[in-house]
C-alpha cells in the first residue's frame, strides 16, 4: 500500500468522533498477543503523548494557531486514550517497563538501520546500547524482587544481556547534546526518525518518573530513579538532534507527517486484526490532520508543504527482532562514550562526565547492585538450579 502525503485527504476532522466505550477498548492479551503488538501500542502512545506536549507549547507561543491546535489536539488526546487503554490491567508496572525497553531496543535498532545520516545513526546506536543495558537491569529486578521471567513479555525476540553498563551512562549535560541535523540539507526520513525516537524516549522518562515511587522495594525505587535519569539524558540527546531553526509550523507539519508514517507502519505490520483496524482508522485521521496543517502552513508561511514533506512515505518501520544488529553493535561500540557532541572511545572521555558520575555513584550504584552476577535463564535464575 502506497501513501502519498501531499494529496491524501484522510478523514475530515469534523467526522473524527469517539464514544467512551470506544475509548476504553478490550485490552490486548498479555499472554496470547504477539509482543510486537504491545511494542506498537506503547510506541504509539508515546508518539501521541509527544504531539500533545508540542501542541500545548506551540499554542503558548502562537496565538493565531491556538484554535486549530486545540481542535486537532482533542482528537489526538482521544486517540492516545484508545491506544494506551489497550494495555491490560494484568500488566504489572514492571512488566510494562519491560515492554517499554523492548520498544526502545527494537524500534531504535530498526530506525538506526534505516537512517541515511551516519552521525544520526551513530547517535541511535549509542542510545540503543544504553537501553539494552536497562533491559538487563530491569529483568534482574523482576527476577530477583518479584520472582518473574522478563521473557514472558519479550517472547524471545529481544536479548537479556548486559550492554553499556548503566552506572557509566551518567554524563554531564555538556556531553549529552548532539549536533542538530540541517533542516535544509537533511533527508525527510531523518526528521521523522528523530521525532519517533524523541517521542518514545520522552514517554519512557515520564513513565518511570510516574511509576518509580509506586514501588515498595528500595532497590526498585532506586533503580527507577537511576534509569529515569538516563532517560532524561536520552531525551536531551534526541531533542538536540532536531534542528532548532525549524519554524513552529514546520515542526507541526513534521509531527503530523510522522504520525501518518507511524500509523502506516503499524497498520502494515499488525497481526491482531482488531488492533490493525485501529491503526487504519487513525492513519486516516492523521491524514485529515496533515491536510489541515498543510493549509495552515500555506496560509501563514506562504510556502509549499512539498518543501518539507516527502511525496511518498518511506518503507514502514520494521517491527521484528533486531537481534543480529544489536549484537553487532554491542561487539563494536560498547566502549564508546560521548565527549561534547562527538562519540569517542572510553579512554578519551572528558573529566566533566567522570566527575558527575563519580558524585552520583558515590553512595553505590542501584543498577550494579540489582544485577550483580546476574545471568538470565529461561524461567528465571532459580530455574537454573533445578535444570
Amino acid at each position, binding site marked *: 500500500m502506497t501513501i502519498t502525503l501531499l494529496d491524501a485527504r484522510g478523514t475530515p476532522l469534523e467526522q473524527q468522533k469517539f464514544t467512551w466505550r470506544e475509548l476504553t477498548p478490550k*485490552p490486548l492479551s*498479555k*499472554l*496470547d*498477543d*504477539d*509482543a510486537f503488538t504491545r511494542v506498537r501500542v506503547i510506541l504509539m502512545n508515546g508518539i501521541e503523548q509527544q504531539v500533545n506536549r508540542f501542541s500545548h507549547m506551540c499554542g503558548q507561543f502562537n496565538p493565531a494557531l491556538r484554535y486549530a491546535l486545540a481542535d486537532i489536539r482533542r482528537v489526538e488526546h482521544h486517540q492516545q486514550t484508545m491506544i494506551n487503554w489497550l494495555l*491490560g*490491567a*494484568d500488566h504489572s508496572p514492571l512488566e510494562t517497563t519491560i515492554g517499554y525497553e523492548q520498544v526502545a531496543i527494537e524500534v531504535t535498532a530498526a530506525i538506526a538501520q534505516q537512517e541515511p545520516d551516519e552521525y544520526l545513526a551513530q547517535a541511535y546506536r549509542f542510545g540503543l546500547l544504553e537501553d539494552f543495558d536497562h533491559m*538487563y537491569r530491569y529483568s534482574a529486578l523482576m527476577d*530477583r524482587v518479584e520472582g518473574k521471567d522478563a*521473557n*514472558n*513479555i519479550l*517472547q*524471545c*525476540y529481544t*536479548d537479556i*544481556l*548486559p550492554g553499556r*553498563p548503566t*552506572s557509566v551512562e551518567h554524563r554531564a549535560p555538556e556531553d549529552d547534546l548532539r549536533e542538530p541535523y540541517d533542516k535544509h540539507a537533511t533527508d525527510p526520513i531523518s526528521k521523522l526518525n528523530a521525532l519517533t525516537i524523541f517521542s518514545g524516549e520522552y514517554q519512557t522518562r515520564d513513565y518511570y518518573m510516574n511509576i518509580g515511587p509506586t514501588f*515498595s522495594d*528500595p*532497590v526498585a525505587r*532506586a533503580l527507577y530513579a537511576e534509569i529515569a535519569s538516563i532517560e532524561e539524558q536520552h531525551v536531551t540527546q534526541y531533542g538536540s538532534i532536531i534542528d532548532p531553526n525549524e519554524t513552529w509550523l514546520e515542526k507541526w507539519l513534521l509531527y503530523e507527517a510522522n504520525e501518518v508514517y507511524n500509523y502506516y507502519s503499524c497498520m502494515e505490520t499488525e497481526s491482531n486484526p482488531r488492533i490493525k483496524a485501529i491503526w487504519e482508522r487513525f492513519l486516516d485521521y492523521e491524514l485529515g490532520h496533515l491536510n489541515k496543517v498543510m493549509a495552515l502552513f500555506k496560509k501563514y508561511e506562504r510556502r509549499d508543504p512539498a518543501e518539507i514533506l516527502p511525496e511518498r512515505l518511506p518503507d514502514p518501520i520494521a517491527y521484528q*527482532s533486531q*537481534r543480529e544488529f544489536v*549484537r553487532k553493535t*554491542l*561487539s563494536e561500540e560498547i566502549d564508546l562514550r560521548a565527549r561534547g557532541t562527538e562519540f569517542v572511545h572510553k579512554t578519551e572521555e572528558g573529566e566533566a562526565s567522570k566527575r558527575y558520575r563519580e558524585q552520583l555513584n558515590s*553512595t*553505590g*550504584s*542501584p*543498577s*550494579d*547492585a*540489582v*544485577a*550483580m*552476577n*546476574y*545471568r*538470565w535463564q*529461561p524461567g528465571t535464575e532459580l530455574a537454573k538450579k533445578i535444570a
Partner: protein
Amino acid sequence: MDQHLGMNRTGIDMSPILIKKMMHVDEDIPTTTNGATTKSTIEDFFLENAEPLGSVPLPGTAKSMIKTVIKMASGKHPEVFINKLGERLAYERTGVRVYEQLIAKCLHSPNDLSPDVQLPIDKLEEFRRQEEEHFELLADCLKQIGADPTAQTPDADASGVAASGLMKVISDPRTSISQSLQAMLAIEMADNAAWELLMKLAEDMHMTDMASRFQHALEQEDVHLRHIRQWYEESVRSQAKMAAMK
C-alpha cells in the same frame, strides 16, 4: 470464560528458533556483570533508615482524650486497639464493594461455571449485607472509645495495599468467576483470622460487650469462608471434569 488451550506465547517452547538464537551468545559478548555495589548495600541502608507508614490518630475530643489517657496509664494500649479496629473497618467497607463486584460478575456470566456449580446470588447478597453490618459495628465501636471512624490507621493502610492485587483480579471483567473466587478465598481467610484476633484483643482490653459482638461477626465470617472455599473448589474441579469429558 472457561479454561481453554490456545496460542499462549509467553513460554520458550512457542519460539523454538528464537530461543536457540537467544541462548547462543558469542564469546565476545558478556552474559553477566558485576560491580562495586551489592543489593544488600541498598536494602540495608533503607531498612535501617525507614520511618513507619504513619501514626494512629489522636482521639478528636478532650473527653475521649481523657478516656484514652486513663487507659494508657492503667497499662492498656488503646492505640493498638484503635489501629486494628480501623483496619477491620476499612477491610469490611472494601468487602462490601468486593461482594458487589462479584455479584455483578455472576449476573453477567450465568454460564461461566458448569451447570453443577451456580453461585446463589441471594447468598452473596446476604454476605454483602453482613459485611456492611460489620462496617457499621466497627464504626460504632471506634466512636464508643472516642476514636475517629473516618481516619485511616497505619494497619488499615498496609492491609489495603495487601488486598489491592486481590481486588484487581475480581474487578477485571476478563477474569472468570473461578479466578475471582480464588481471590475471594484469600480475602475471606485473612478476614477470618483478623476477626478472631480482634475478639481476643477486645477481651484483653476487658471490653466484654465488644468481644461478644465480634464473636457474632466471626461466626458470620466463618460461614462466608466455608461457602467461598466450597464454591471455589467446586468451580475448579467441575471445570476439570468438563475438560475431561470434552
